[in-house]
């Protein structure tokens, strides 16, 4: 065991070993806990990231945690390791995307974006796969439950965090992530007529989903 304070190179080696050995992504804090106090974990991660750049194995940030994974361009080699992915239907993928970009959002909001009611199995499947989770309740009448993505979603698609969602900044700038449709605009929808508890969201409501704020507040 090394007794003296380890230098940068040694810290990097240790971080490398920990990340390699781990069965799942590790946060900087988790790594730091296994290193001597004051070790520069961030520096070691940057150095490793650079070192592995372009190699067959690369260091990647998912859900604010770090992991080694094979280079995406080598996917064709990995036939033996490949698992038959569970195929998500078009409806499930759209639902997932709506949740990802608008979270936290309610079932009624998902339905309003797609213009159809959500078929029964769709949310269940996403919840069961661990891509989606319940986040809380909207402070509106009926207090509907809100949904958001879970870490597994980010890990599966290799996203370091929600800001990393493709096009999210552009969509936000274009006002496309606004869930409050202009007042009075409501295409009559027979399929939702019975859903008494789905209150349409009023514009300017206190906690209308504000993507950035919710995300930040969570951590």
């Amino acid at each position, binding site marked *: 065991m090394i007794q003296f304070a380890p230098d940068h190179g040694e810290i990097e080696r240790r971080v490398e070993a920990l990340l*390699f*050995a*781990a*069965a*799942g992504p*590790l946060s900087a804090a*988790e790594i730091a*806990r296994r290193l001597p106090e004051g070790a520069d974990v961030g520096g070691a991660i940057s150095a490793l990231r650079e070192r592995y750049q372009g190699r067959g194995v690369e260091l*990647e940030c998912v859900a604010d*945690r770090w992991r*080694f*994974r*094979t*280079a*995406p361009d080598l*996917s064709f080699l*990995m036939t033996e*390791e*490949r*698992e038959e*992915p569970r195929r998500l239907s*078009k*409806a499930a*993928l*759209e639902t*997932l*995307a709506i949740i990802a*970009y608008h979270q936290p959002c309610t079932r009624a909001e998902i339905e309003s*974006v*797609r*213009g*159809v009611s959500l078929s029964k199995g769709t949310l269940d499947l996403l*919840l*069961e796969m*661990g891509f989606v*989770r*319940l986040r809380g309740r909207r402070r509106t009448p009926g207090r509907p439950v809100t949904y958001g993505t*879970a870490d597994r979603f980010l*890990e*599966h*698609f*290799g*996203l370091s965090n929600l800001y990393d*969602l*493709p*096009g999210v900044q*552009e*969509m936000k*700038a*274009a*006002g*496309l992530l606004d869930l409050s449709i*202009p*007042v*009075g*605009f409501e*295409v009559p*929808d*027979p*399929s939702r007529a019975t859903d008494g508890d789905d209150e349409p969201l009023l514009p300017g409501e206190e906690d209308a989903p504000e993507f950035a704020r919710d995300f930040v507040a969570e951590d």
Partner: protein
Amino acid sequence: MTDAFQPNLDFTAAEQVDAREAFVVDLEGYEGPLHVLLALARTQKVDLLKLSITRLAEQYLAFVHEARRRNFSLAADYLVMASWLAYLKSRLLLPRTDKGKGDEMPAEEMAAALAFRLQKLEAMRKAVEAITARPQLKRDVFTRGDPEATVIVPSDRVDASLYELMAAYVTQRRREEQRHYNPGQRVEAFGLEAARDWLRDILPRLEEWTPLERVAPERRADDGPTQASFTASTLSASLELVKEGAMDVKQAEAFADLYLKRRGRGQPLELVP
């Protein structure tokens, strides 16, 4: 990747779809009216916000018409959307009066809102494409195939989601329910034989029209047959006696009270024990 999300969606690259071909819509591929509208809007090859809503309405109405002509069964949503679009179109075409009905939103705003919804749905569709095009775990990228067992990882997170919590709760409540399953008391019926005997016993006293409820025995014990069973069996038995000519039954109208009365004295049945 990000240029897929230009606020001004550009459909110049969209397929050259002839307006007539747009009718050949595979309904299986569409989730609902909004998805069909989006597909139709793309044929106009303009920014979704500058879309001609009247033209879109026409396209959609033609689509619905065509689908019905071909006997596609269309969900109610499609028809509701059709009538709403027909209404919106007529309002858009009408010369604007000084003021419409106060509580109604101007047709232009409704049209803009529809365009916004289409744009939003389009953005989500592109998002699906962009997300699924990313390298996916265990399909494109792989983590270490043989992680070292000595390290027990992510220890600062507990592996339990609200969904699992709910699922655990419901499972147990169900199990509890099954454990405590109580089929209830065995439902005993007032037997027809017993009802007949009862009727024969009281028949001599039924000289006046008497409501069925008062003829039927009264429930005494808490176990035993229910009052409804007493009434039902008494009715059945009395109908038999009517058939045999020992009694009369009358009812003023449907669901009204039933009245029973014995026939004249000396009916042969009375002689039968």
